């Protein structure tokens, strides 16, 4: 049962990330996802110390707020300050991350939210963190419930607004000419990315989120040209990485999140080889 819950948690994160990641990759904004996953630290720390508990909604709110602030600052420095995008991302997230570490040190020399925790997370503890009904019966691990809900929101968002996302992703100029607000869709998408990062960070760690945002969708991108197929194949790769990653970690007795990332990297390597071979076959 524990294995099932761990794989389920991994898969929920993987599918949420693969769906959002496809859009990030196509919009050339993958690194914004990476930036958000680090810069939510001060939001989490502040929420933790102001409210005083780790499992409050306030941590989600604090982190999501920081996610949106990060996106805004990156755009602001880039557009108003004329700082090139790569540097704008780099300056913003390292600054906020440094602020987060300083806040941690300020509030308490050593608490259990440190940069270790945000980078690593611990998916192995997911099954212990149960959610109970009013009568005290355990239903399912809390992260599973939260992540399922998040996945539902993401799936609903993408299927309802597929057309808008499609147009603003591929042809900004056209989108603007028919009166769409490209900014609205940009911030909505980034808001969801922040929520996903925050909802997943406790259970799987920031690095797994970044890897799952990019690797499955990028692998899928190499073998299809169709956005819908990319979303489906990406999700499939994500689930596959979770399952195989769990067993790899089991055999090596190592970090589960690390193993899931490793497998997603291997899947990418296979897709990469496939795309190179295919290109060679065509040119011959």
């Amino acid at each position, binding site marked *: 049962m524990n294995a099932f819950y761990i794989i389920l948690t991994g898969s929920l994160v993987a599918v949420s990330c693969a769906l959002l990641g496809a859009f*990030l*990759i196509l919009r*050339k*904004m*993958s*690194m914004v996802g*990476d930036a958000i996953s*680090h810069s939510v630290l001060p939001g989490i720390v502040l929420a933790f110390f102001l409210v005083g508990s780790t499992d409050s909604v306030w941590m989600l709110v604090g982190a999501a707020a920081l996610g949106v602030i990060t996106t805004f600052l990156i755009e602001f*420095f880039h557009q*108003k*300050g*004329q*700082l*090139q995008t*790569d*540097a*704008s*991302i*780099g*300056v913003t997230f*390292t*600054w906020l*991350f*440094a*602020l987060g*570490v*300083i806040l941690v*040190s*300020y509030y308490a*020399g050593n608490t259990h939210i440190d*940069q*270790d925790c945000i*980078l690593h997370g611990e998916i192995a503890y997911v099954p212990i963190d149960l959610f109970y009904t009013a009568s005290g019966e355990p239903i399912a691990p809390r992260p599973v419930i939260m992540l399922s809900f998040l996945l539902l929101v993401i799936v609903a968002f993408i299927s309802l607004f597929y057309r808008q996302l499609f147009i603003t992703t591929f042809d900004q100029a056209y989108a603007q000419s028919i009166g769409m607000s490209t900014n609205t869709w940009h911030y909505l998408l980034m808001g969801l990315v922040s929520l996903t990062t925050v909802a997943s960070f406790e259970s799987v760690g920031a*690095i*797994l989120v*970044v*890897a799952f945002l*990019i*690797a499955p969708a*990028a692998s899928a*991108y*190499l073998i299809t040209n169709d956005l819908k197929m990319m979303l489906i194949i990406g999700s499939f790769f994500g689930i596959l990485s979770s399952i195989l990653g769990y067993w*790899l*970690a089991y055999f090596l*007795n*190592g*970090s589960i*999140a*690390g*193993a*899931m*990332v*490793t497998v*997603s*990297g291997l899947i*990418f390597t296979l897709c*990469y080889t496939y*795309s*190179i071979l295919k*290109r060679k076959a065509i040119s011959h």
Partner: protein
Amino acid sequence: MESFIEFFTFQYPNIKYVVFGTVLLSISSAVVGCFTFVRKRSLLGDVVSHAVLPGICIAFIVTGTKNPFYIIIGAFLTGWLSIVVMDAITRNTKIKEDAATGLALSVFFGVGMLLLTFIQQSGSSAQSGLDTFLFGKAAALVGKDLWAFSVVALIVLTITFLFFKEFKLLAFDKEFAKIIGLPIGQLEMLLTSITVLAVVTGIQAVGVVLMAAMLITPAAAARYWTSNFLMMIVTSSVFAAFSGVLGAYVSYAVPSMPTGPWIVMVLSIIAILSIFFSPTRGIIVKVIKRISIQRQLLEENLLKALYKIKETNSNGVVSIAELAAKRKFSERQLQVGLSRLKSEGYLEHKNGNWILSAEGIIKGKRMVRLHRLWELYLTEYLRIAPDHVHEDAETIEHVLTPDLEKRLEELLDHPKVDPHQSVIPK
């Protein structure tokens, strides 16, 4: 104050180690950071700093010791490999640089994490402390570290100095460098190597995540103060050294504060201040310029409208309603613009109506004149239909200088009327 004196007179040898160590490190990162910045590959530092983890672990697994020499070699190799992988992905597939960056960064780090936990579970006692390579320990630098930092800084600065011209060309105009026969491949390899070297040693002081800032932030800040590349390197080194010292001081004065994050905090504050207050590219300067241009446009448009009304109604007493009917102004624009014109002496206010002063007439007349001259010029010389020239003249009238005005007049042979048969005032 006591700690300030203690710190800056280096009363304890440890202070000296920390200060010199962080300053050397900050400067060498800033120098290589300038190159990655102008090549628009700032996030390279982030990738390398994450990618050293598997190398550290493999070095430990292979040699079984924490000897820094082997560890640094291992770190250097996988750091290097991550850049090769990233380049291969962007070159051979349709995946863009951003996704390749994120991919290399997270996958290398994930593999490293798997290896690290594998080592930790294996129960070898020698492994404890392997993770200090990841999270930095700037406040705990000892003489040995200072030695390592000095060597690395020396290597980085010497190579940069020797190949400055070549690297600069590579960074700004790769095609040209190729054409004049520079060995692009080798130069890139060298530049990448010193970048990786700077990152690998730097991580031990500030940690994985903040290492990226040591490369990016000083260069980004320096860019706002100069357009000369050499000056940019110098400026960024000064910023970096200053932040290094200040960061070290904060964690000395307040022992619970970590050094690395404070260095990055100081650097970031410098960068953000530069973004706002740079005298040439800063946001504030640009906002001020935009406001003053808007103000000028509004004033000139008001004077022009008032003068046009005066042309048809010679007593020149204009009510707000007449002005609003002549041209679309918002209520706020009218209020602010008219009172400013009055205080500048272009307008007089009488019983709720407005009259142009002598100076106001001159200025208003000039605007109308420029507008009509330009309309005539467009129809005569560019053969544009008279009903299409108004918009263009609306823009250019604010820009034409007295000199150009004179030449236009001569070119058009001192015309009397514009294409709409309105009189061009003298």
